[in-house]
């Protein structure tokens, strides 16, 4: 609560009295001593990059300038390897896709018009490396970071989601990482009072040593509350507020996220940040009050690259100049050098631009919320970012060269030589594809085996550690197809969100795999009844310096951007996470795609499970089934990965989406579930497991119409399919709608609330099999608890 760090004792932090033990490298020094060699390689810069910094400045950089360039030009912040490909997301946006887009790619998060004066902003980001190093804090600060992106757009965060990828469920390191990540997400998100409404959990030994922890946050605002990150208005003042700056996370963006793990590199400072959700909560509320009272001109959260990023981005997005005195930064550790202060990734900080007239009102809000702040400097018209240390200039740069004009690489890429052989290795022709289940007994056993595998098993041990309902606006959450949040309590206006990504498909064909990730996410949102509107993506890949990985990346971006154009949903932002590899072994390409959709009224949402009161309702299968088992969950059970992923048909996907949305809006259907991993077998099992309500179905007609055997009908992962349950009184209206749209629909059977079992008949030996829901539930729900024990207290 002071502008002067010397005027008041540290806010709970030990006040060290040691004088800083370093000499200051000023701009004048840099000009006078051009020969001085700086440790650019240790900061993660390449020689050509260091040379080009010298060319931009016309002299050697100062130590502080070098620190700024090194973090801002790191892969994580500059997108230097991915930029040339990511352009496609912007290039392929049509005018029609822009219709509801208020803010597109490039800001902290994209903003979509929801109607009635409401806008929604959402974004997904990675926090993979920090979560591997320190699972609890890594995952916790992942939530903190993405939530601050949402605040900085002017929105109130309303929910989070977490797509997670871990190594083998039985590997010792998974037992170190998973419990920490799960309680970190719960510990931070629950403390903030944000419901966690979905995500996914996948176990695959390909993520051993490189787990993926992605985090999505969604926020809502009134149109007039929209804020952007720019520093405009000469003479306006620049303020840093929130937590103090400490030595945590220095070099996180440049070293940790932008290089492969290498055990031989010791680091002087820990690259781990510790989060404080209660400080973040106060930051959220104080920012919303600032927005409401129109007290800030521009605002930026401090995430990767800390003050370096905030000052250079605010300055270059505004009128181009800023003058800052760095000794005004409130420190937790007074021994930090200027370079360390510029690079620190201490959490829960924000930077804002405030007019001199509003300064007193700004201070009043800060003291009301008990938030520390310090005025750092002001906006200038010099087009230079000038940073002083005790009156001496240590940084004098064109902010655009730091924030936007970083290096851009056209990394070489080529189709891996093994790709053809991989695609030729189909499941049917493999050893695992022999003697597939064909009798009633074997097919029934296969369904139980599938549902008891780690990836299909009940995830509630994990999701129960997250608060799903806090705030009272959650209409659907895990394990339903999409998370649904009410935005307007009077009209019921709301949003549905889903995140999806199948790295097995993407590994077999990155172009199609990325499209399938979008298609599934789109389908999930539509299945819940929401109209898909916008996309955010988190692209997790290996090292861009590996041409095979770069090919996977370029194909995935091309596939995803083409698919967005066809489905008419724009990408509004996201994140690229490269260098996800350990000991030269990259993770499988994992684009995670989040789709956000709109509900006129969330009370019209369609849940995924058969309802207990819905006895006798008709069950329909929408879409057709082909022999598509390559990359499937069943193939995973047989330890096979090869061939080509299921066909993508985006036009059909759109039609299916319209059917599901209309059926929800008109109240025709009472449950709906999309078909994805595990195919029809998994969908029927999940719909029954949800509320313990059984079904009686027949796959005779599926086999006959589509020309597939019973095994294929049950386990194929053909896309663009969904199962719905509806009252018999609605059957005619529903089938009229599917017929009118030329979309295939087959009546499979009925909901049977009394039987307590899943009964499936078909053209196989024994003619029908039945699975008791209680027994299935027993094995399905014990997979994760049997490995990880009782959930720990998420405190």
């Amino acid at each position, binding site marked *: 609560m002071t502008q002067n760090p010397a005027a008041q004792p540290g806010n709970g*932090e030990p006040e060290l009295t040691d004088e800083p033990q370093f000499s200051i490298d000023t701009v004048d020094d840099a000009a006078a001593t051009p020969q001085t060699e700086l440790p650019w390689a240790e900061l993660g810069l390449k020689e050509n990059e260091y040379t080009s910094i010298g060319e931009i400045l016309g002299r050697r950089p100062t130590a502080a300038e070098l620190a700024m360039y090194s973090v801002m030009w790191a892969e994580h912040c500059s997108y230097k390897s991915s930029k040339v490909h990511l352009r496609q997301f912007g290039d392929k946006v049509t005018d029609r896709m822009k219709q509801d887009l208020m803010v597109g790619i490039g800001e902290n998060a994209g903003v979509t018009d929801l109607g009635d004066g409401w806008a929604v902003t959402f974004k997904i980001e990675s926090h993979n490396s920090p979560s591997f190093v320190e699972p609890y804090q890594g995952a916790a600060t992942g939530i903190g970071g993405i939530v601050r992106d949402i605040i900085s757009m002017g929105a109130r965060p309303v929910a989070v989601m977490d797509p997670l990828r871990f190594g083998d469920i039985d590997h010792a390191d998974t037992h170190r990482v998973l419990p920490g990540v799960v309680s970190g997400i719960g510990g931070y998100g629950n403390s903030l009072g944000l419901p966690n409404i979905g995500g996914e959990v996948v176990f695959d030994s390909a993520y051993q040593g490189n787990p993926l922890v992605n985090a999505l946050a969604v926020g809502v605002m009134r149109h007039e509350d929209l804020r952007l990150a720019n520093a405009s208005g000469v003479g306006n003042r620049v303020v840093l507020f929130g937590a103090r700056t400490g030595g945590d996370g220095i070099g996180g963006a440049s070293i940790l996220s932008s290089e492969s793990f290498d055990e031989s590199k010791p680091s002087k400072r820990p690259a781990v940040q510790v989060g404080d959700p209660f400080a973040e909560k106060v930051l959220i509320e104080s920012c919303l009050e600032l927005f409401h009272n129109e007290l800030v001109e521009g605002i930026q959260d401090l995430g990767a690259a800390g003050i370096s990023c905030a000052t250079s981005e605010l300055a270059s997005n505004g009128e181009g100049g800023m003058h800052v005195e760095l000794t005004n930064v409130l420190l937790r550790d007074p021994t930090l050098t200027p370079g360390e202060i510029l690079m620190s990734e*201490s959490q829960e900080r924000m930077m804002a631009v405030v007019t001199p007239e509003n300064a007193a009102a700004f201070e009043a809000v800060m003291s009301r919320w008990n938030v520390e702040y310090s005025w750092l400097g002001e906006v200038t018209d010099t087009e230079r970012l000038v940073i002083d240390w005790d009156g001496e200039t240590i940084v004098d740069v064109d902010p655009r060269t730091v924030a936007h004009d970083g290096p851009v690489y056209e990394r070489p890429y080529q189709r891996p030589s093994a790709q053809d052989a991989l695609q030729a290795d189909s499941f049917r022709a493999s050893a695992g594809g022999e003697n597939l289940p064909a009798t009633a007994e074997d097919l029934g056993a296969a369904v139980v085996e599938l549902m008891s595998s780690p990836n299909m098993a009940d995830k509630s041990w994990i999701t129960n550690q997250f608060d799903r309902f806090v705030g009272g606006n959650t209409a659907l959450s895990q394990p339903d197809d999409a998370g649904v949040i009410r935005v307007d309590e009077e009209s019921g206006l709301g949003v549905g969100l889903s995140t999806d990504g199948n790295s097995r498909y993407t590994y077999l064909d990155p172009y199609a795999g990325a499209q399938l990730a979008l298609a599934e996410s789109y389908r999930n949102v539509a299945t819940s009844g929401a109209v898909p509107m916008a996309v955010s993506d988190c692209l997790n890949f290996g090292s861009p310096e590996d041409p095979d990985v770069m090919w996977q990346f370029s194909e995935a971006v091309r596939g995803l951007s083409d698919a967005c154009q066809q489905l008419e949903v724009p990408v509004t932002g996201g994140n690229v996470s490269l260098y996800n590899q350990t000991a030269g072994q990259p993770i499988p390409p994992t684009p995670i795609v989040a789709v956000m959709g709109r509900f006129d009224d969330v009370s019209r949402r369609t849940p995924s499970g058969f309802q207990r009161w819905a006895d006798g309702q008709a069950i329909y299968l929408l879409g057709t089934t082909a022999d598509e088992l390559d990359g499937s969950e069943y193939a995973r059970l047989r330890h096979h990965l090869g061939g080509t992923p299921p066909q993508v048909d985006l036009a059909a996907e759109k039609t299916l989406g319209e059917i599901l949305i209309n059926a929800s809006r008109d109240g025709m259907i009472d449950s709906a579930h999309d078909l994805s991993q595990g195919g029809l077998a998994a969908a029927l099992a999940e719909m029954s497991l949800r509320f313990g309500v059984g079904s009686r179905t027949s796959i005779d007609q599926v086999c006959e119409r589509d020309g597939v055997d019973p095994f294929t009908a049950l386990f194929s992962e053909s896309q663009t399919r969904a199962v719905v349950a509806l009252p018999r009184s609605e059957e005619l209206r529903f089938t009229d709608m599917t017929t009118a749209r030329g979309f295939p629909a087959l009546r499979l059977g009925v909901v049977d609330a009394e039987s307590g079992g899943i009964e499936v008949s078909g053209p196989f030996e024994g003619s029908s099999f039945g699975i008791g829901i209680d027994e299935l539930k027993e094995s399905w729900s014990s997979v994760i608890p049997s490995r990880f024990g009782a959930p720990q207290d998420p405190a």
Partner: protein
Amino acid sequence: MPTIVVEVMPKPEILDPQGKAIANALPHLGLTGFTGVRQGKRFELTVEGEVTEEVLDSARKAAAEMLSNPVIEDVVSVAVAEDQQTA
């Protein structure tokens, strides 16, 4: 029975939200004069019989590998408690 006391503190450069919360609360009780609080952990390991160098070694190993998180915490001491002979 002798007890070995292990003390663990958050590393000095790491944020300690609990300590910070306590420091902010102290003035509300009228307890001024403290410029900082950091909160650590204390473990008591009870030993049957004599504390040999071997037993201390395994306590040190427990402290480093189980009782502390070396990424964010330091073990500041592993010592036999002088006057704590209760089980």
